């Protein structure tokens, strides 16, 4: 089962990559405001159903994939809706 995990930096923390990219885009003439970087991890999970896949991926995020101190994550499974 395919699961996509989307990981973003917590609000309020600085995002130097985003800020630098925003500056570069403006220099190229694009009218952009804030720019923020995130990561996605696409996983093939061997799970019985969507709920199990979601649970497994949530667990993986907490343990390894995301850094709970500075990041938030959302797990998407192909059939379901997003949960946080």
């Amino acid at each position, binding site marked *: 089962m395919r699961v996509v995990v989307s990981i973003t930096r917590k609000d309020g923390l600085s995002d130097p990559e985003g800020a630098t990219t925003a500056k570069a885009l403006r220099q*190229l003439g694009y009218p952009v405001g804030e720019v923020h970087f995130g990561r996605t991890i696409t996983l093939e999970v061997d799970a019985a159903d969507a709920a199990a896949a979601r649970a497994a991926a949530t667990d993986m995020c907490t343990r390894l994939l995301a850094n709970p101190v500075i990041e938030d994550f959302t797990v998407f499974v192909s059939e379901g809706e997003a949960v946080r």
Partner: protein
Amino acid sequence: MKVAVVVFPGTNCEQDVVHALRALGGTAELVWHGDADLAGADGVVLPGGFAHGDYLRTGAIARFSPVMTAVDRLAAAGRPVLGICNGFQVLCEAGLLPGALVANRDLRFICRPVHVRVESTASILTAAATVGDVLRLPLNSYEGNYTASAAMLGELAATDRVVLRYCDPCGAVTEEANVNGSLDAIAGVANAAGNVAGLMPHPERASDEILGSTDGVVVLESFLIALRLAAVR
């Protein structure tokens, strides 16, 4: 006969490259990335570092600097253009060299001496070396893992444009010697004309006995010779 050594915000090896080129009798000067011309230089080195922090992607933002238009022109005119480490990444992003550099296989920065084997002497990178020479050069990078499409790889091999491969001290290309996991163990490549080339290891850091190796001298000398040759042509 002058070499321009380009400084982007975040570049950090510019002084080292100038120092090493001058020690070999070259004339080298720093050029700011925001300048639109290369101050009359006959060749250019893009040195190592972290241009624009390597944020977004290594080399991505740097290629839009005004100076890169002048670098393009010099490259098109057949003058020598050398990219070292981050400079190699910039040249790939700018489309002056094929392929791209991604994160090292082990996802760690690697700072250590490596051995590379000279695979071709058809470019400015190794014209003064001999095929099969093994050089011991410092590697210092997080994104040094060379990659390219299968088609591009085939073309590089067919046109003698793979210049350096990671190898063991005896010159054997092994999985273990390919410390960053580069495709086909590629450590340096050239463009079709041979006047634009890039490599991940740092030849300038191996150009003084007291620093442990002088194997980088042949690379910098090849570049300086190409500089003179291009001018007489």
